[in-house]
């Protein structure tokens, strides 16, 4: 992860009100163990809070985890808030209880990687390695 002289930085965030943080914490740890710099926001974050953290922390990517079914509302809202703060180039990926039929809508909104139940941490780590570059590089 020595690209551009620094490690890639990923914000792992829990938008919405649900408290299911098992997945988010596992992904955060797996990314950290794979050599990324990881900032975990904790629970109950609004889209504004997540975008603010991502921009403040100069993140290269934001990983969102949601299990409450509110992904169609909250994922695009995070992307809007990132754009509003000049973070439109930050890669956004996410996972949770997301039916196949919602995947296209999320991709269209700008969520480039979507991981559903059964995805391994290795798949996610590999995806981040392939798809995330240091911003401005």
């Amino acid at each position: 992860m020595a690209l551009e002289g620094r490690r890639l930085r990923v914000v792992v965030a829990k938008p919405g009100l649900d408290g299911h943080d098992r997945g988010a914490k596992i992904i955060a740890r797996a990314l950290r163990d794979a050599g990324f710099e990881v900032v975990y926001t904790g629970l109950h974050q609004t889209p504004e809070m997540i975008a603010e953290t991502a921009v403040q922390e100069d993140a290269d990517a934001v990983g969102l985890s949601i299990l409450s079914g509110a992904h169609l509302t909250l994922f695009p809202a995070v992307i809007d808030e990132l754009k509003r703060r000049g973070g439109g180039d930050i890669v956004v990926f996410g996972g949770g209880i997301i039916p196949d039929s919602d995947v296209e809508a999320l991709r269209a909104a700008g969520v480039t990687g979507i991981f559903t139940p059964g995805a391994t941490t290795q798949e996610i780590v590999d995806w981040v390695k392939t798809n995330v570059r240091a911003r401005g590089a």
Partner: protein
Amino acid sequence: MSKPERKVPSAGREPERPVRFSTVSDMEVAPLYTADDLPADTAERIGRPGEFPYTRGVYPNMYRGRLWTMRQFAGFGTAEDTNARFRFLLNNGQTGLSTAFDMPTLMGYDADHPRAQGEVGREGVAVSTLADMRALFAGIQLDRVTTSMTVNCTASVLLAMYLAVAEEQGVPWTALGGTIQNDMLKEFIAQKEWICPPEPSLRIMVDMMEFCSREVPRWHPVSISGYHIREAGSTAVQELAFTIADGITYVEAGLARGLAVDTFAPRLSFFFNLHNDFLEEIAKLRAARRLWATIMRDRFGARDERSLRLRTHAQTAGVSLTAQQPLNNIVRVTVQALAGILGGVQSLHTNSLDETLALPSEPAVMVALRTQQILGEESGITNTIDPLGGSWAVEALTDRIEAEARTYIKRIDELGGMVRAIEAGYPQREIAEAAYHYQQQLERDEKTVVGVNRYQVPEERPPDLLRVPLEVEGRQIDRVRRVKRERNGAEARAALARVRAAAEGRENLMPPLVAAVRALATVGEIADVYREVFGVYRDPAWL
């Protein structure tokens, strides 16, 4: 209990498969258990069904007297949507109701709050005011069913609403039976729905316990829950230990209020997870009963037998279900439910096969309920009380799980009790470690999940899923705004002021809460009082 030993000579046989013989919690088990694995006082430790220490069950005749309560957790969309699902379940032979609320209701926000956006009615029913609660139970006589309500930091408000609906139906509170989850400690540990910090959360909980013991004597004011601890990734031993430690804290809080143990302990109830590992789960439930009975008698001096009996609801493990080949989930749920029944539970929810994808559809719920009915009425396992009692393997595992749970409980006592342990992040970290350990085992193929890391097939189209239309949110927002517009505003404000006064002082919160919901104060307004008076808890975000 001895360590696992190799007691089976392998000469002339197949060598053992090169795998780690361990449970889903990664507890290694012996190839064979014999009478030598059990201590000399085993007969006494096992006892008889319905007798101390209740290892074999809390009632003498168990399911020969009455089957467990079949209680499917349900809730989505508006109160009317969920009321229809309740009637569907009751018409199909379900024997108790169980209510799932949506995230805004659970976290103390009305449907029209910005934080509720996208979440209204999505993973449970939206209830903002008494008008919603009335619609939720329309046409269901509350003295004819028992109701479980899964709600924690806003439990006091939802219980007040239930009591108000009962009053409107002419049902006396003394005739109400049911359970409200109201277990805040496991929220900080695992499920993570909260408003205020642990200490005031505990105060609200004790208010409810005290109030119910006087006014709603057949109600269970708390369901001490291991379910969510396990779902968050704990082992079976951690689930048991943290749950019992939470129970200990509630008993201590009741005693600190000046309540006599036998006035409230008989109404404490429990809620455990049923995971994939069959014998481990059975042993966990048996160990739970023995542990609780012993602690209540020896540590708290309880004398009423009902205080010693650990009565429990159980739910099959949502986290064990797979999105891949979802029909296989029916088999998982069957095995898990069977463990619950052989473990002696009093009430059971069986998960639906499509729950990793969405809220359960009606056909999927039907199969889940039928699974219980087939186990209860076709399989014959209910004819004999605790048929596994005396099995060397089951008794040895029961002993071991109990002993390991005691070690955790001792550690928590040393940390100063569960509230201090939570503040130090101890149970949260233990669970996160166990969850990560399991995920790594899975990814190294040391553990198998059929259809996920073995026996995969190209996937067929997922089953028909329940979709909650986005319009539900708009309708619910309109409804709560209409109620706020049309109610007597001065009356609602005065009632909220009385709630605030009680919160700031020492008066029991329940009577002013019942008055406030009658005056159509909303869940969000009352939660705002809690936020202002008690402060707001934030996720420490430990990794």
